[in-house]
């Protein structure tokens, strides 16, 4: 099962190496890992997508917690989250096919960010499935290259007394 793990980390050199090294050393697989700044200049947020059974993911969460500069770890599983991926995709767009291509882009709420004689570059964001679907649709035209950010995610609403919130609290208390 796919788990989105969110880790708040100190904004220090070596933290990414500690996290990536821990995953490699303990043979956990990372599906994607995104690091970015937060509203607090001393803290960064890592959003890590991991595939594994509950026991493996529980170990991932606990091993992350052992890394000293990791301040807080949350597993979003079972919680209502907004998860987004951003993609830039360049693919062949011969002039005669451009009208249909533009309508596809429109359907996916994508944005043309660059256009040349042969290729078009499009920006698409959304849940992972939407990104995957767009890639599949572009395949017949001939994809030149794809760059994706990986998933970032946030819980949909502030902590209330829902089973999911209690689960989150239980994790923090462990």
């Amino acid at each position, binding site marked *: 099962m796919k788990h989105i793990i969110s880790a708040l980390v100190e904004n220090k050199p070596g933290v990414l190496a500690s996290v990536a*090294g821990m995953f490699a050393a303990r043979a956990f697989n990372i599906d994607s890992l995104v690091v970015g700044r937060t509203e607090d200049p001393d803290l960064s947020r890592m959003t890590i997508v991991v595939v594994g059974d509950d*026991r493996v993911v529980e170990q991932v969460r606990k091993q992350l*917690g052992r890394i*000293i*500069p990791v301040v807080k770890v949350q597993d979003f599983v079972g919680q209502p989250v907004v998860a987004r991926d951003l993609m830039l995709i360049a693919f062949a767009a011969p002039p005669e096919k451009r009208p249909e291509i533009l309508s596809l882009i429109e359907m996916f709420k994508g944005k043309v960010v660059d256009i040349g004689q042969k290729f078009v570059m499009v920006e698409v964001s959304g849940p992972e499935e939407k990104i995957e679907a767009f890639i599949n649709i572009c395949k017949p035209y001939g994809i030149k290259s794809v760059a994706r950010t990986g998933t970032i995610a946030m819980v949909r609403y502030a902590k209330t007394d829902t089973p999911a919130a209690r689960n989150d609290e239980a994790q923090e208390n462990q």
Partner: protein
Amino acid sequence: MTAKSSASACSADQSSIKTGAQIIVDTLIDLGVDTMFGYTGGVVLPLFDRLYDAPIHFIVPRHEQGGCHMADAYARASGRVGVVVATSGPGACNLVTGLATAMMDSVPLVALTGQVRTELIGNDAFQEADTTGITRPITKYNCIVKDVKDLARTIREAFYIASTGRPGPVLVDIPVDVEVSKYAADGPVEMKLPGYKVRTKGNAKQISIAAHAINKSKQPVLYVGGGVIISNAGDELRALAEKAHLPVTMTLLGLGSYDQRRPESLDMLGMHGSAYANYAVQECDLLIAVGARFDDRVTGKVATFAPNAKIIHIDIDPASISKNVQVDIPVVGDAKSILGQLIPEVEYQERKSWFAKIAEWKKKFPFRYDQNSSTIKPQYVIEELCRQTNNEAIVTTGVGQNQMWAAQFYKFIRPRQFISSGGLGTMGYGLPAAIGAQIAMPEATVIDIDGDHSFNMTMTELATAVEHNLPINVCILNNGYMGMVRQWQELFYGKRYSKSYLKNPQYEAVATALGAVGMTVEKKADVPKAIKQMLEEKRPCVVDFRVEREENVWPMVPAGKSINEMDGLDILESMA
């Protein structure tokens, strides 16, 4: 008046301006450090200059690995933080084995390494290595200090992280320009560790559930690891075992946590553990793990480990819980405090038939060896050491057969008495560990029960023992083989002894040349006398016991088998 006060303020400022090296030494002294181990070099010259007349007992090993093991054993014997210093590049790289050893066994250690000048970092400068990169997976935490104003705080944090929670080694890498730059410290130094929280007390509800399970259990076993020793919970452990009437088995690193002369002791469990401990674990209905981590050398085949047992796991490291074996009742926190919380809630149960069953196993399958042999049996040497030291010595070991026999035949009675590389299994640990332990405990009798090939790896440190006039006792169980490797080759590789024996030196002559006392014992009848003479000697002493060459460690759980599927029980029974 204005002039006067500004003058005094000025002089105060003057005196609080310090170099990085001065800040390091002052912080160490302030933290209570009075003993350090380490080796000098190019980029730590400013630091060593400050150490020239500092009130710190400084021990220089012959190799940084030795220094790191010394600091490690100093910490294990005393419970204090061990400190080791090394220069950049090769110096730091030579700490690697020692840091990994300390990491695996949760030893509080602080390593300070020099680094090339900040502006040279990344340029492949002379004696440059990416020390924090190399040591990241083998330290609890590490960092590089690039600004002198962070130095005092970082060193304090290093000591705090190393010694709290589940302890471990912390490395602080310090570029040489930071050692010489000046900084006027103002005000107290505060730690900034938002991501580090130490939990000590256990959850009261979980503890009550655990107590209830203990009170209900008909066939319980306490399974105790090094965590009990680290948290100084020996008294609480004994109180719990006595009050609830529980048999106690220990891991290799747990040895010493419970007096092995007491009837509740089942001695060590696992691959070379006692048959009675392994049988008891396999048949118990409740396994109470305290400060132990279900290592593969303990569990054997995980799927069939303690198959009928409900498992309570008390550990300070949440990541240790349900890592290898699924746990029913986890309690996260410090062993001392949790056992203290648990004791009032447990009740005495007689458990007559359970203890009778255990007594029968004990009678049938004790640790044995052939006492009528004409050769020197290694087990005999250890029994004699135990007898002549009244179970009181601090014992360090190499790794392999020597280590397993020491664990089987020396009966330990108090925590911090058995010092051995358990998790990493570092050959060559025994001699530097004996030095570190003797420095920590000057009055104690310290014995390194070593193998010939383990001793070969770090024997250069004998010169360090001589230099500091340490009365350590090195007992080499010399069988001319890497004994445990040979045993596996005998059992699993058709006796093809591939590269598992080397030409050994005359250890007596080596010892003498280095300024220690050397002895060779070839006859069984000479063993007691030699040990007596060794223990009376006030200088470092090396005794080369020429033991039975192809003796095996029994019992043995072959890799991948359940721990009640032990080989060698027939051999042990035939010696009865």
